[in-house]
């Protein structure tokens, strides 16, 4: 566990990811995350404390701009209701996206391909899968309707970043993909490395990625978390709830 105020080591992937995701949010945007989303929860709360105070923070509990006292590991937890002044429903949030009024949705995938499409459904055949995954939750609806989709995935390996998805659970308006190794940006419908995290070797990144990417010593490096980001992050998530995403498969 990191301590307050110290620069994160390059390998502190949870912190690097939370900060990188947070920086992608702009003031005034409406931002949503769903179940199983500790990193988006922390990233959004962080952005709201830093560059995006007017961001509207929405989540699956239907709270609006909550100020949680403690961060829950389950991102459906009523701890995310604290401080909200109104309640909407998940239905409202899907509707909001559907009519083009949701700026950012955070989504993830067990598999992600070079087009930024995701699979959260099955490994193997859909009807008789080798592995039944949890399902895409809202992603098939949100990925084409949210204005920007930010994907995150806490594993960056060739089983996650694949040449071919076993099943396309969802496809759509992916803008960025944040991983423990890099940030991808989607240009002309394809993921490109926008920045490589400090200390990650370009060869390693290529080797861990199942599709061709352009990465070398000239690739931009993701700026390390600033002291301000780290201090605020430690205040927001003192118990390191973000680590829970790295604990399981």
């Amino acid at each position, binding site marked *: 566990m990191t301590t307050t105020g110290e620069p994160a080591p390059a390998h502190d992937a949870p912190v690097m990811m939370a900060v990188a995701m947070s920086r992608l949010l702009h003031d005034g945007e409406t931002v949503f995350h769903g179940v199983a989303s500790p990193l988006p929860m922390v990233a959004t709360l962080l952005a709201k404390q830093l560059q995006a105070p007017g961001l509207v923070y929405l989540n699956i509990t*239907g709270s609006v701009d909550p100020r949680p006292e403690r961060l829950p590991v389950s991102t459906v937890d009523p701890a995310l209701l604290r401080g909200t002044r109104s309640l909407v429903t*998940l239905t409202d949030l899907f509707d909001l996206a559907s009519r083009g009024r949701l700026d950012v949705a955070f989504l993830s995938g067990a598999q992600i391909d070079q087009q930024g499409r995701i699979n959260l459904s099955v490994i193997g055949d859909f009807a008789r899968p080798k592995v*039944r995954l949890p*399902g895409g939750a809202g992603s098939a609806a949100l990925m084409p309707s949210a204005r920007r989709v930010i994907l995150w995935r806490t594993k960056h390996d060739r089983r996650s970043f694949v040449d071919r998805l076993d099943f396309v659970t969802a*496809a759509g308006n992916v803008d960025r993909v944040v991983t423990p190794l890099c940030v991808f940006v989607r240009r002309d419908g394809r993921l490109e490395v926008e920045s490589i995290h400090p200390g990650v070797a370009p060869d390693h990144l290529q080797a861990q990625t199942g599709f061709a990417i352009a990465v070398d010593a000239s690739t931009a490096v993701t700026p390390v978390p600033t002291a301000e980001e780290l201090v605020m992050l430690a205040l927001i998530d003192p118990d390191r709830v973000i680590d829970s995403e790295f604990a399981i498969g």
Partner: protein
Amino acid sequence: MIDKQTTMAAAIAAVPDGAILALGGNTLHRGPFAAVHELVRQRKRGLELVKTAGAYDVDLLCGTGCAAAVSAGFVGFETLYGLAPSYRREVEQGRVLAKEHACYSVIAGLRAAIQGVPFMPIAGMLGSDLPAARGFQTVRDPYTGDGVVVIPALMPDVAIVHVQEADRTGNARIYGTRFEDLLMVRAARHVILTTERLVDGVTFEAMPESVAISGFMVDAVVEAPGGAWPGGCAGLYDFDAEYLAAYIAANKDVDSFNQFVTERILDAEPMLAAR
């Protein structure tokens, strides 16, 4: 106004084998888990479960052979415990049919049922393999000529919803998130409420705006303190991490799973979480 109070056993006896069954709540939060335990005790078979995001409830009903199909957008224990082990196993072995939805398509199907129409158009879904895999059709908009995916009506035979406060006629308050519960109550043919506490409905007259569920849409009311356990119930108790960890661990093989179900559900006093 009709007194609809009954026992958990009697309320759940009204759920027929093969029913399309909607379960309120979301993942580990305010789900009608005491009612789910009673479904297990009564050895229901062939249920088709409807939920946007399920966890313990869906997993247990799959693992105990109660469920034959699951219409849901997500089934798992979030980052807490990962994949839903029984659901995963039963689907992979072909005993449970995963009718995967997009959460919003569950909502769309319920909306169609509520509105008495055969289908509901839905935004999004473009580029996904789900419409083809699930047989969701596209219709041409007669006004613009554009195609739009439509979801068939999804009318639960029974919905079970757990609330914090209800009167004997089925008027109910929900504190915190309502999830898709209000859609389920409207869409289902038969509605069972389980409630942390029964209150005198007269108290609702001072602020009917705060009453989430209208009694005339409800068929049975069961007093069930701790009725969301081992899940949590907003304002009252958190989910039971110890129990859930033990449940996940017990899923390592069939024997330990069966032993867990026998000891902690079938033979147990219907457990009331302390709060």
